[in-house]
C-alpha cells in the first residue's frame, strides 16, 4: 500500500474539466477538423442488399463526374497485405475473419461498403457517389433474431463455455422459483462525432492518420498489420473524441478504406461517415434474448441462478461480451449456471457499448431479482442484502474492497425509499401512478499498464505525456488532479499531452480502467520525480546539503508550486528553476511504466441506481421524477468529472430503458430509423434531477489512489431500476426494452 496516503485529505476543491473551455469554444480539434493541405474527400457507397454478391458495378459515370480522383471497388482495390495473410488485422481480436473491405464480391450486410469514391471537394464526392450503380445477385438474408434463435451456438474458445457451480439449473427444484425471458433490442452508440479519419501517406511505407479511436495504440497495430508497415511508421492522432461509447474500440473497414484511398491517389484523404452509416458500419449493442431462472427459500435466501443469453453477431465474426458473467458473482448463491450463445445475422459485427454486456445482463438479472423479491413479499433491497456476497463466490477470493451495502443505504435515504410501498399501484397522484425502483450494477476494477512521462520545466510547468486519449470522462482532468496533489502544484501549472502514438504508451479508453491505469502511472512518475528532486537537492552546494545533513529524503521535503523546502524549517528552500539551473538541466524529465499486480483479491466496482417515476396508464406515458445513482468506485479522484460521468450513465440508462432501439425492416434487412430524429435518445426534458453519491472509500489494493473504475457502473443497473419502478407504479412487468408508451398500455 502506498506510503503517502494519497487523497486522504478530506476536503479538496475539485478542479474543473481542464479541456472544458477548449471543447465548448471550438478550440478542441477533432479528427475531421485537422487542416491538412491538399486533402481530398472520400465517401463510401454501400450495398443495397443484405446478402449476396456484386454481379456488376458501374463506376464510369462516377469516374467521369467533375473533380473525381478515383473510385475504388473490389475490382481494382490495391491488395492489402494483412488481408492476404488471413491474419486478423483488427485489435482486439475476435473470433472469425473481420470484414475485408473491397476484398471480393461477397455481401454480408446492408450498406456494406462496395465502393470508395474520392473527389476534390466534399460536394462533388457526394454527388459522384450517387452515380455508382451496382447490380447484385441477391441471396436470402437473415436479420430477424427471433426467427433464427435455433441457430444459436456457443462461441469458439474456452471463455464462453457453459458455466456451472453446484447443481445444474437448480432453480427448477427450488421452493420458490422464477423463470422469465428478457429482451433487449439493438442499440447504436450514436456519439455526436461521426466516424471520421484523415489519412496521409508520407512515402511508400509511412502513414499518419487523424482518426476517431479510443486507443491510438490499438489503431496503430491494426494499421501496421493491415498494411504490413513498421509500427514506428504508423502515426495515429486522436487527442479529442466527440463521444464514442465503445464505437471506436476497434479499427473499422471505413478507416482501412480511407488509408487505402489516400495511398491510391497520393494525397491526404478525409472520410467522414454519415449518420446513416453509423447505424450500419461501426457496431452496436447486439440484440440479446435472456432467460433467467432464480430459486430461493421461502425466507429469501437465493439457492439458484441460471442465466442464459443469446446475442446476435455478424456472419463473419464472433463478437462476444460478458452478458451472463455478473450472475456468477453478484450474489451469494451456491448453484449457478450460465450459458452464452451467438446467432449470426446479416448485419455488421457488434461492438461493446456503454457498460457493454454487463449492462444488458444486469437488466435481466436485476429485473428478475425484483420479481422474485415481490414473489417473496420482500423489499427488493432487503432481498439483496440477505444475499450479499461477502466474498467472491465465483473465484473464492476476498474482495479487495466492497461497499455495496453503503450504496443501498445512501441511495435509499436520498430517493425516499421508505415511502415506497411493496404493493404496486399503491401511490396515485391524479391519473398518474407513482413508483420506485432500484437496480444494482457491478464491473471489474481492472488495471492495465501505462507509461507516463513527466517534464518539470524551469518555468514551474509540469508536462505529463501519455498516448491515452479522452472520449469524455475527463482523463486529462484526472491526470492533472493526481499530479497537482502529488506535486503540491496548482492545476494551471500542469499541462497534459495525450492522444498520439508519439507519446509514451497508454491504454485504450474503455473497460473502466483508465483512471486506475494511467492515474497510477501519473502517481508513480510524480513520486519518482520527487525522488529525483530530493536527490538533486541533496547534492553538495544545495541549501539542503549542510555539514551535518548530506541527504534529504522526499518525506523531509515540502513540494510546492515554485520549488521545494524543508519540512521542519521552511526557510531552507530552493526554486525548481534554481535547482535545474544548478544541475545544468533545461528540464527534469522522467518516464515511468506502471502496471497492476496480480493480487489474491477480487476487485469490482459497484453501483446502485434508484428511480422514482410516474406512469400515466391511459396513455402509457412515463415521466421520471428523480434518479439517484450511488457508486462504490473506491477513492473518487476527480469529483466533478466523476459526477458528470455518472450523470451521463444515468441518461444513457434512461435511453436504454425507455427509448433506444434500432428498428429493422426484415423484408429489406435494413434499419429504418437510421437517424437521430427517429432513433430516440433522451432529451433534456426527459431527464430529471440526477443525484450522484459516492461512498468514496479507498480500495487498498487496486492502485495508489485507491480508486476503482466508474465508466461502466454509471449505466449498469439503470435500466432495471426504471423497469422495476414501472412495475412498482403499475403492477405491469415489461421485460422487453425499450418501455415505450404502447408497451405500457398493452402490458
Amino acid at each position: 500500500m502506498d506510503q503517502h496516503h494519497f487523497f486522504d485529505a478530506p476536503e479538496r476543491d475539485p478542479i474543473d474539466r481542464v479541456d472544458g473551455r477548449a471543447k465548448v469554444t471550438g478550440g478542441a480539434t477533432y479528427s475531421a477538423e485537422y487542416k491538412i493541405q491538399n486533402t481530398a474527400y472520400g465517401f463510401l457507397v454501400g450495398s443495397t442488399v443484405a446478402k449476396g454478391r456484386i454481379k456488376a458495378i458501374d463506376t464510369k459515370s462516377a469516374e467521369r463526374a467533375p473533380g473525381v480522383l478515383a473510385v475504388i471497388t473490389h475490382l481494382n482495390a490495391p491488395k492489402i497485405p494483412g488481408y492476404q495473410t488471413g491474419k486478423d488485422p483488427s485489435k482486439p481480436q475476435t473470433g472469425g475473419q473481420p470484414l475485408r473491405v473491397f476484398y471480393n464480391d461477397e455481401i454480408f450486410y446492408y450498406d456494406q461498403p462496395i465502393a470508395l469514391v474520392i473527389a476534390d471537394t466534399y460536394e462533388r464526392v457526394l454527388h459522384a457517389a450517387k452515380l455508382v450503380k451496382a447490380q447484385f445477385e441477391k441471396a436470402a438474408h437473415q436479420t430477424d433474431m427471433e426467427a433464427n434463435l435455433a441457430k444459436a451456438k456457443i462461441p469458439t474458445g474456452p471463455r464462453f463455455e457453459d458455466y456451472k457451480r453446484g447443481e445444474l439449473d437448480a432453480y427448477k427444484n427450488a421452493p420458490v422459483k422464477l423463470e422469465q425471458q428478457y429482451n433487449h433490442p439493438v442499440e447504436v452508440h450514436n456519439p455526436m462525432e461521426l466516424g471520421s479519419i484523415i489519412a496521409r501517406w508520407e512515402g511508400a511505407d509511412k502513414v499518419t492518420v487523424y482518426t476517431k479511436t479510443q486507443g491510438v495504440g490499438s489503431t496503430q497495430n491494426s494499421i501496421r498489420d493491415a498494411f504490413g508497415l513498421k509500427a514506428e511508421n504508423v502515426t495515429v492522432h486522436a487527442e479529442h473524441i466527440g463521444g464514442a461509447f465503445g464505437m471506436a474500440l476497434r479499427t473499422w473497414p471505413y478507416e482501412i478504406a480511407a488509408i487505402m484511398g489516400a495511398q491510391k491517389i497520393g494525397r491526404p484523404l478525409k472520410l467522414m461517415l454519415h449518420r446513416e452509416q453509423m447505424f450500419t458500419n461501426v457496431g452496436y449493442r447486439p440484440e440479446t434474448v435472456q432467460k433467467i431462472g432464480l430459486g430461493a427459500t421461502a425466507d429469501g435466501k437465493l439457492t439458484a441462478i441460471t442465466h442464459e443469453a443469446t446475442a446476435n453477431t455478424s456472419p463473419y465474426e464472433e463478437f462476444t461480451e460478458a452478458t451472463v458473467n455478473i450472475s456468477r458473482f453478484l450474489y451469494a448463491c451456491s448453484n449457478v449456471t450460465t450459458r452464452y450463445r451467438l446467432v449470426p445475422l446479416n448485419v455488421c459485427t457488434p461492438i461493446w457499448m456503454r457498460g457493454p454486456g454487463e449492462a444488458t445482463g444486469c437488466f435481466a438479472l436485476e429485473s428478475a431479482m425484483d420479481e422474485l423479491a415481490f414473489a417473496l413479499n420482500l423489499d427488493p433491497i432487503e432481498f439483496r442484502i440477505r444475499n450479499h456476497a461477502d466474498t467472491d463466490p465465483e473465484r473464492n477470493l476476498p474482495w479487495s474492497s466492497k461497499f455495496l451495502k453503503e450504496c443501498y443505504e445512501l441511495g435509499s435515504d436520498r430517493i425516499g425509499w421508505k415511502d415506497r410501498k411493496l404493493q404496486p399501484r399503491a401511490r396515485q397522484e391524479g391519473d398518474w401512478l407513482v413508483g420506485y425502483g432500484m437496480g444494482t450494477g457491478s464491473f471489474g476494477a481492472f488495471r492495465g499498464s501505462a507509461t507516463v512521462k513527466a517534464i518539470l520545466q524551469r518555468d514551474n510547468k509540469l508536462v505529463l505525456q501519455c498516448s491515452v486519449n479522452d472520449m469524455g470522462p475527463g482523463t486529462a482532468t484526472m491526470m492533472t488532479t493526481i499530479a497537482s496533489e502529488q506535486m503540491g502544484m496548482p492545476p494551471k501549472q500542469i499541462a497534459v499531452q495525450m492522444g498520439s502514438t508519439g507519446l509514451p504508451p497508454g491504454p485504450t479508453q474503455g473497460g473502466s480502467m483508465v483512471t486506475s491505469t494511467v492515474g497510477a502511472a501519473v502517481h508513480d512518475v510524480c513520486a519518482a520525480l520527487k525522488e529525483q528532486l530530493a536527490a538533486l537537492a541533496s547534492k553538495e552546494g544545495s541549501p539542503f546539503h549542510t555539514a551535518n545533513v548530506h541527504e534529504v529524503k522526499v518525506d523531509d521535503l515540502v513540494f510546492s508550486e515554485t520549488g521545494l523546502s524543508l519540512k521542519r524549517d521552511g526557510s531552507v528552500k530552493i526554486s525548481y528553476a534554481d535547482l535545474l539551473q544548478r544541475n545544468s538541466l533545461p528540464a527534469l524529465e522522467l518516464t515511468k511504466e506502471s502496471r497492476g499486480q496480480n493480487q489474491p483479491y477480487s476487485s469490482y466496482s459497484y453501483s446502485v441506481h434508484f428511480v422514482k417515476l410516474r406512469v400515466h396508464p391511459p396513455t402509457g406515458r412515463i415521466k421520471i421524477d428523480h434518479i439517484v445513482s450511488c457508486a462504490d468506485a473506491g477513492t473518487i479522484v476527480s469529483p466533478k468529472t466523476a459526477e458528470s460521468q455518472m450523470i451521463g450513465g444515468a441518461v444513457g440508462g434512461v435511453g436504454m430503458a425507455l427509448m433506444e432501439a434500432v428498428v429493422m425492416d426484415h423484408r429489406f434487412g435494413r434499419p429504418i430509423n437510421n437517424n437521430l430524429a427517429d432513433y430516440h435518445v433522451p432529451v433534456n426534458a426527459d431527464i430529471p434531477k440526477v443525484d450522484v453519491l459516492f461512498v468514496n472509500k479507498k480500495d487498498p489494493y487496486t492502485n495508489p489512489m485507491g480508486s476503482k473504475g466508474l465508466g461502466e457502473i454509471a449505466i449498469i443497473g439503470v435500466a432495471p431500476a426504471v423497469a422495476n419502478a414501472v412495475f412498482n407504479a403499475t403492477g405491469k412487468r415489461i421485460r422487453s426494452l425499450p418501455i415505450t408508451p404502447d408497451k405500457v398500455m398493452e402490458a
Partner: protein
Amino acid sequence: MINFEYIRVATAKAAVDALVKDGVAQWIAGGTNLVDLMKKGVTAPQKLIDINNLALKEIKKEGSKLRIGALALNSAVADSELVQKEQPLLAQALQAGASQQIRNMATVGGNMMQRTRCPYFYNTDMPCNKRQPGQGCGALKGYNRMHAIFGASDKCIAVHPSDMCVALAALDATVQVTGPKGSRSIPFLSFHRLPGELPQKDNTLERGELITGIEIPQNAFAKSTHYLKVRDRSSYAFALVSVAAAVDMQRNAIRDVRLAMGGVAHKPWRLTAAENFLKGKEATEANFGQAAQLAIQGAKGYGHNNFKLKLAPNAIVEALKTAVGKS
C-alpha cells in the same frame, strides 16, 4: 453535381410569376423540411425561389379574426402574446412541435406544406407511392407504428406530421392563398387531403398557388384548451397521437367544443361526431369517454400501430379533462 438556381423575390406576385414561368421551381422559406428532402434525394428542384423577403410575417387582429402571415416563424407565433391570449391552443400546439431551433426557422406556411415523416418516403431505396407513384406502399406491410388509423388507402398509410395544423383544424381556420388565377380562401379542413389513389398529392393547392396567411375566427375557447401530444420522448419526437381540445364551458355544461387529432391520418383529423355528442352535455369523464368512442369509430390498425386504437380514445379523454381542468 445537381446544381440548382436560386433566386429571391420580394412580392407574392413575383413569387407566383416566377414559379408559374418555371415548371421545375419550388419555393423555399425556412427550408427545415425541403433541405432535408433535397439532401435525401427525395426531391431535386432545379430552381429555388426564396420567399423569405415577402411581407407576410405579421400577426394581427383583423376585425374579429386573428390573421397570421404565412412567413411568421413558428417560434414567433408560439411566443406571440396576442396568440397566447386569443388562441392559446395554437400556441400550445406549436410549442409541442419540433425543437426550439427548428421553430426558429420554420414558417407557418412551411409547417402546413411539410411532407410526411414516413421512413419509406425518405429512403429512396424503399418503395413509396407518395415519392414514386406505382412503387407500392412500404409501410402497409412493413413497420407502421407511426402510421394512420383513419382515412388511409392501400396506396398510402402515412400521417401528416404537423402539430400546428391539428390546432388550426380544430379552430376552423381558413388558409389564404394567391395564385395565377387570383386569390382564394380554403377552409383548413379542405386544405390537406386523404391519400386515396393520389398519395403523392398532400393538399388541394393548385400549381402556382402560394399560401399568404391563415385566419382564425374569434372563439370563446381561450380558457379551456389543451394540446396533448403523446410521444416517445418529451421533445423533438413526432406524435404517436396528439389531441387538440378546446371547450367553451357554460357553468358545468359544454356550450361548444372542438376536437382534432394528429398522428392518426394523412391530414389533421377533426372529430365532428364527438364534438356533436358533447355539445350541451356536462363535462364529465363518462361523457368524454362516450365521445371518444364515437371519435374512434371506423379506425383501423395496420399491425404495429394497433395500439393507437386504444391510445387515441384515451388521449381524447385526457385532453378534454385537462382542458376543463379536471385532470
